[in-house]
């Protein structure tokens, strides 16, 4: 109990620092502090916003399917949720394959039996669903045909009618023309007749278009259960395929099995070498020994090459944005300090800052691909990538490649400016009294810089860095989409390219992921900013 009451204020302070002041009344309520007021606050600042969110989701759910777009309907929240689950399952599958790849000994055998038994079950389900889907397809086809039949009949009737009308018109026109030849009617009346016919044709066209639209309407809107049945069947088939792939990874694709095979091969070759009768044969077998043992060694180092899951993409995006952000900070802060300290430096850099700040990230990306690309003529043997991707490096999972560096540099280039400008202003806006203190104490340049100037401009510097990180995160998504650097940007771009029925939902999912991560990054920066700001910090939003 004592501990409970002891942590009250630290707790309140923590949520204050982390910017989650919304939860303040909840904590206070727990401590029974003015419960009525707290409940009022909870209702006002938590319940109402949550209700509002639900209203938004409901509106989305309601309006989404009613808005037809070029890429189909706007997916509903449920569809997005399903897609999120699919993405999760996809990453689970990658994990399962990875495990299968490296399992060895009895575990592997057990796993094989388990997976095989699962396959039998799943195949049963799949074939049931497949039949179900076929049945529904048949049913729907019958239904649709039934719906189409009368319309088609009308269409045929109309066609016949039109054909006949056309023939009649032609005959009428000829007859009229004959009369004209005979001088019974004026040429004008023939023109008028043709004009009338043309109008009739237009009318017919409009009619057949209407029927065509009606047909399309029926064809384009099959009942939902058809799509659902197909989707269910497809999903189960995918699952079966995955389990079969797992068997592959447990048997011939298994690391241990591969190595064992190679060792066996080398043993065979050793035996053959011993039994060799001709020099050529001996050399051949010796070569085989070397090559198979070498292959075994390199196989031992092989790792399962995982496909890019949304988790991996997210991790990579976050890593890239941090690399870019750190580059930006390392460049921007010293330059910003110089600008703030010296007005000549500021004057020299102002035109550069003004010109380059508005440049689009896309342009930077293209420039960096050319400029920085020159440093990695052969990425695979480049020390940076060898180091980053060596199996012992804990960051090897990021699979660093030049595209990542380009994206990070683009992020850095765009995130540079807010940090630079803010640092410069923070330094130049330093309290004159503080400088006077430095003067009175006769501090040297470096101690003035590190003891007075930098600490005093830290809050602004961090305000700038916070903006930088936000800008960087936004820029990154675009840069990744363009540079094929793995990450959320590529996830979005790939989905766009996929053009599958789930693509739109996937893009919306990515939108949420990007948003949430951006939010978390911003919160982190706020906390940092609060930690370095020396007043009560309440000013930081």
């Amino acid at each position, binding site marked *: 109990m004592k501990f409970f009451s002891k942590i009250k204020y630290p707790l309140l302070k923590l949520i204050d620092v982390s910017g989650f002041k919304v939860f303040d009344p909840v904590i206070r309520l727990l401590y029974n502090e003015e419960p009525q007021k707290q409940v009022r606050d909870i209702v006002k600042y938590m319940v109402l916003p949550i209700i509002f969110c639900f209203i938004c989701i409901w509106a989305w759910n309601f309006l989404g399917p009613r808005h037809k777009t070029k890429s189909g309907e706007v997916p509903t929240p449920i569809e997005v949720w399903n897609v999120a689950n699919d993405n999760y399952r996809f990453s689970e599958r990658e994990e399962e394959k990875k495990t299968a790849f490296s399992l060895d000994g009895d575990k592997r055998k057990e796993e094989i039996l388990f997976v095989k038994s699962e396959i039998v079950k799943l195949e049963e389900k799949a074939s049931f669903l497949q039949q179900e889907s076929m049945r529904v397809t048949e049913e729907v086809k019958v239904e649709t045909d039934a719906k189409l039949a009368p319309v088609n009949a009308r269409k045929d009737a109309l066609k016949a009618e039109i054909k006949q009308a056309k023939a009649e018109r032609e005959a009428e026109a000829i007859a009229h023309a004959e009369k004209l030849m005979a001088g019974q009617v004026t040429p004008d009346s023939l023109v008028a007749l043709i004009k009338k016919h043309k109008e009739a044709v237009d009318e017919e066209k409009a009619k057949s278009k209407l029927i065509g639209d009606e047909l399309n309407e029926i064809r384009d809107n099959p009942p939902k259960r058809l799509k659902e049945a197909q989707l269910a069947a497809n999903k189960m088939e995918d699952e079966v395929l995955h389990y079969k792939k797992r068997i592959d990874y447990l048997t011939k694709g298994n690391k241990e099995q591969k190595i064992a095979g190679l060792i066996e091969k080398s043993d065979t070759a050793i035996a053959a070498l011993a039994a060799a009768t001709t020099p050529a044969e001996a050399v051949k077998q010796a070569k085989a020994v070397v090559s198979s043992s070498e292959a075994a060694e390199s196989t031992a180092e092989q790792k399962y090459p995982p496909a890019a899951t949304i988790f991996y993409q997210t991790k990579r995006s976050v890593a890239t944005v941090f690399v870019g952000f750190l580059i930006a900070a390392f460049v921007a802060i010293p330059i910003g300090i110089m600008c703030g300290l010296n007005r000549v430096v500021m004057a020299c850099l102002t035109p550069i800052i003004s010109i380059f700040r508005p440049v689009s990230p896309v342009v930077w990306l293209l420039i960096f691909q050319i400029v920085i690309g020159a440093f990695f003529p052969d990425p695979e043997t480049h020390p940076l990538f060898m180091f980053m991707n060596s199996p012992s490096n804990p960051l090897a999972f990021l699979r660093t490649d030049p595209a990542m560096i380009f994206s990070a540099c683009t992020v850095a280039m765009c995130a540079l400016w807010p940090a630079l400008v803010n640092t410069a202003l923070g330094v*130049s806006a330093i*309290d004159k009294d503080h400088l006077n203190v430095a003067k009175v104490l006769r501090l040297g340049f470096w101690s003035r810089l590190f003891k007075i100037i930098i*600490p005093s401009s*830290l809050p602004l510097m961090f305000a700038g860095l916070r903006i930088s990180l936000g800008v960087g995160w936004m820029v990154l998504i675009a840069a990744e989409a363009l540079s094929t650097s793995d990450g959320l940007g590529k996830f979005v771009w790939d989905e766009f390219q996929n053009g599958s029925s789930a693509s739109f939902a996937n893009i919306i999912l990515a939108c949420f992921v990007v948003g949430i991560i951006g939010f978390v990054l911003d919160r982190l920066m706020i906390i940092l900013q609060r930690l370095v700001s*020396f007043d009560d910090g309440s000013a*930081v939003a």
Partner: protein
Amino acid sequence: MSFLEIDNVNVGFGPPTSRTEVLENINLSVEENEFVAIIGFSGSGKSTLMNLLAGLQPPDVGEVRLNGEVKTIPGPDRGIMFQNYSLLPWLSVFENIELAVKSVFPKMSKSEREEHIMNYINMVKLTPARDRKPHELSGGMRQRASLARTLSLKPEVLLLDEPLSALDALTRSDLQDEILKIWGGDKRTVVMITNDVDEAVLMADRIVPLTMGPGATLAKEFTVNMERPRDRHTLNDHPEFMRLKSEITTFMLDINKESKAKNPADVVPMPDVQPKDFTPPSATLKFSHLGNKSITPVNETSQ
């Protein structure tokens, strides 16, 4: 030759053709261990005078001498205590003083330094607050911390730039006593700027009025012939105190009237605009949108 001298000093600004003198013909001699109060109206150039003494602003004409040496740059020999404390907000009381002590006495060992610092913190009665940051302190406590920092430099001259003007009356009298007590125990030359006649009379040995600017200069000085320690509770009955107070007040009001008569433009209400300047706008304005209030506007002129 006096201990601290201001010799025929002029300070002004503007190009030579239309120059405005802030201070003109300033002459002041302060003896060692003397407590001098300079009293003046807002805008008369009191802070300029203080900056001059501290070396933060060089004189255009004339010189400032300490112990016969000409001073043009600031140094720890003239410890200045600013009106708005000037504590570094990211450092605790102890660290603020430590920064000063470290740079002035670099050879001090760690334990010596700590003792030295604690000595001054104790002196201003801030021991319980030694690890607090300035924003966690009251105005009075901040000024105490500032005083401790200034004293810790062991300056030859203590320059107090309206040190108490931002405080409420109670804290103010409390601190006046505190300063007097410390000064009593550890005699030192003090130049204090103030706009409070009572304060000047209570604390100083000598009171020098500063006339209204532009072109302010030091007027006829008043010597305070009252024995120390002076007790503020009985002071109001002290005839010398009453005499000095009324004399100085009358004198000050006279110079004010004179100045208004001489310079009628002053009476005309001035529009509240700043002269146009092409330097970057003040930080407070610029960054208000970033939601950062940590930079407070600096009021350069006295109140």
